[in-house]
């Protein structure tokens, strides 16, 4: 706003156009404070989240779970909490975990997840026996189409270059059909949709998903016929975390719940934005009222 207008304008008018940096400060605080305080609300799991939870919870120990990391660093804030909580749940249930990625960017995220969650929290899990990292392979949906029938055609080694034949956990796996559940993380392309269309449907393998909040609506139509369940964004993560926490209070008492914490931050920031909208409108109408009065007096 030019300076002369600024000087003439009354307080009301100026409030209408407050420096946006004040808004920025409020948003930053709205996000940081709940995160620092570790605030969290209990969330009631929605049916679609509960469905995936139940599926994993009911799998007998030793069942095979494939987790595909189909996302990148930009969406990691939303996806990672879901990866972490599902991995924890799977390890708690003693499932055999197979990690892979159809996104190139997923490769380093698998390594990171193993280093930050699996190894410190589940020291009994042994590489090659209880879990394996198959790494990233190019080919998008083409890759899925091949491994649904034959795993070894695409994977001759794991992510570390070890021969597949020498990895005990791979001995019982010849194709995706040997998996008891596939969970794809990430809503982009290729992602959950491709897993459903090229692995779940033709192979008769249960597929679940976890994706960003924005892409969730496009995936709802697949539930419950083609997709076991779906976690959509931070809310999905928070619901899952909350439910796991309620069901296994001892095992999960000390694990972080980034989803639940971020959910509070999101909510507060959301409310701050709404308050600003209300504030802006109130100022606008008050100013307009005053202006009208002034013109009438003249």
């Amino acid at each position, binding site marked *: 706003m030019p300076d002369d207008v600024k000087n003439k304008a009354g307080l009301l008018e100026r409030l209408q156009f407050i420096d946006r940096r004040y808004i920025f400060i409020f948003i*930053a605080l709205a996000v940081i404070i709940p*995160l620092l305080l*570790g605030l969290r609300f209990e969330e009631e799991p929605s049916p679609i989240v509960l469905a995936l939870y139940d599926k994993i919870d009911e799998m007998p120990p030793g069942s095979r779970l494939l987790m595909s990391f189909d996302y990148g660093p930009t969406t990691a804030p939303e996806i*990672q909490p879901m990866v972490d909580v599902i991995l924890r749940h799977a390890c708690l249930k003693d499932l055999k975990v197979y990690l892979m990625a159809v996104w190139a960017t997923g490769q380093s995220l698998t390594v990171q997840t193993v280093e930050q969650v699996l190894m410190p929290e589940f020291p009994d899990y042994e590489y090659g026996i209880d879990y394996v990292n198959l790494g990233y392979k190019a080919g998008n949906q083409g890759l899925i189409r091949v491994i649904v029938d034959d795993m070894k055609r695409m994977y001759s080694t794991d992510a570390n270059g070890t021969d597949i034949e020498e990895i005990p956990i791979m001995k019982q796996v010849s194709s995706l059909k040997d998996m008891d559940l596939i969970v794809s993380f990430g809503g982009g392309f290729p992602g959950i949709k491709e897993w459903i269309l090229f692995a779940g449907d033709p192979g008769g393998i249960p597929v679940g998903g976890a994706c960003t909040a*924005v892409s969730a609506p496009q995936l709802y139509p697949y539930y419950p016929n083609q997709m076991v369940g779906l976690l959509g*964004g931070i809310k999905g993560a928070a619901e899952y975390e909350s439910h796991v926490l309620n069901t296994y209070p001892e095992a999960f008492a000390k694990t972080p719940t980034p989803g639940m914490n*971020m959910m509070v*931050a999101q909510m507060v920031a*959301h409310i701050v934005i709404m308050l600003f909208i209300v504030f802006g409108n109130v100022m606008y109408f008050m100013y307009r009222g005053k202006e009208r009065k002034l013109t009438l007096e003249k």
Partner: protein
Amino acid sequence: MNPKTIKWIIFVIVLSAIVLSVYFVSLDRGSFRDGVFVTTAAFLTLFIMSFLYKDNPYYKFAEHLFVGVSAAYWMTMGFWGTMVPNLVAKLWPGSVRGVLPALADKDPSLWFLIPLFLGIVLLMRLSPKGGWISRWALAFIVGTTAGLNLIRYLRSDFIQQVNNTILPLVDKTEAGISFWGSFSNIFIFVGVLCGLVYFFFSKEHKGFFGGAARIGILVLMLTFGAGFGYTVMARISLLAGRMTYLFGDWLGLIK
């Protein structure tokens, strides 16, 4: 204090913060490498965020670094991801034995002389005289774009959307006529038609037509408002993610 002194003071503070961060994070994680990595990422995050206050040298630094690194990143990916496997390996399979042994024994595919030729033609721009010939490559690209998109949009955005809009205006369920369902279907019907009327170019928005176009605008406004509101939450989660990095991974304040 003159501004220059303040700038230097800030610079010294930032520099010492970086050094301290590297030291403490390395100590905490037991690896110097981690210390450098985590600190770099954290300070680059802060540098970018500083733009929200105003433009400053730290943002400029991060911005310029980002441009250089990311440009090279995509070029490298183009080279190893497209050029080598999709051009060199297709034309001269034997030559990639050292890097992509899996592709070395395939038969050469001469079709790929087309992109090779066009690629070289495009590079003719660098020569001072033959620049005009690069238009051939551009013409090929534009032709491809036009041809591919014509049918693609016809299928997914025209035909499919018309199909989806054909709905009964009366929503009959087992329990009889559903008021909400019928209302929704009528809303979609009227909304799509009025929206289309709004986009008409060859008719003035007047009279009945103008009224329909007006409704069309209002429906579009509803769409835009809803689209905006729906995305807000996802955007905040991104910020929450960055903050978790700063206060958790870096400073260790969030467990």
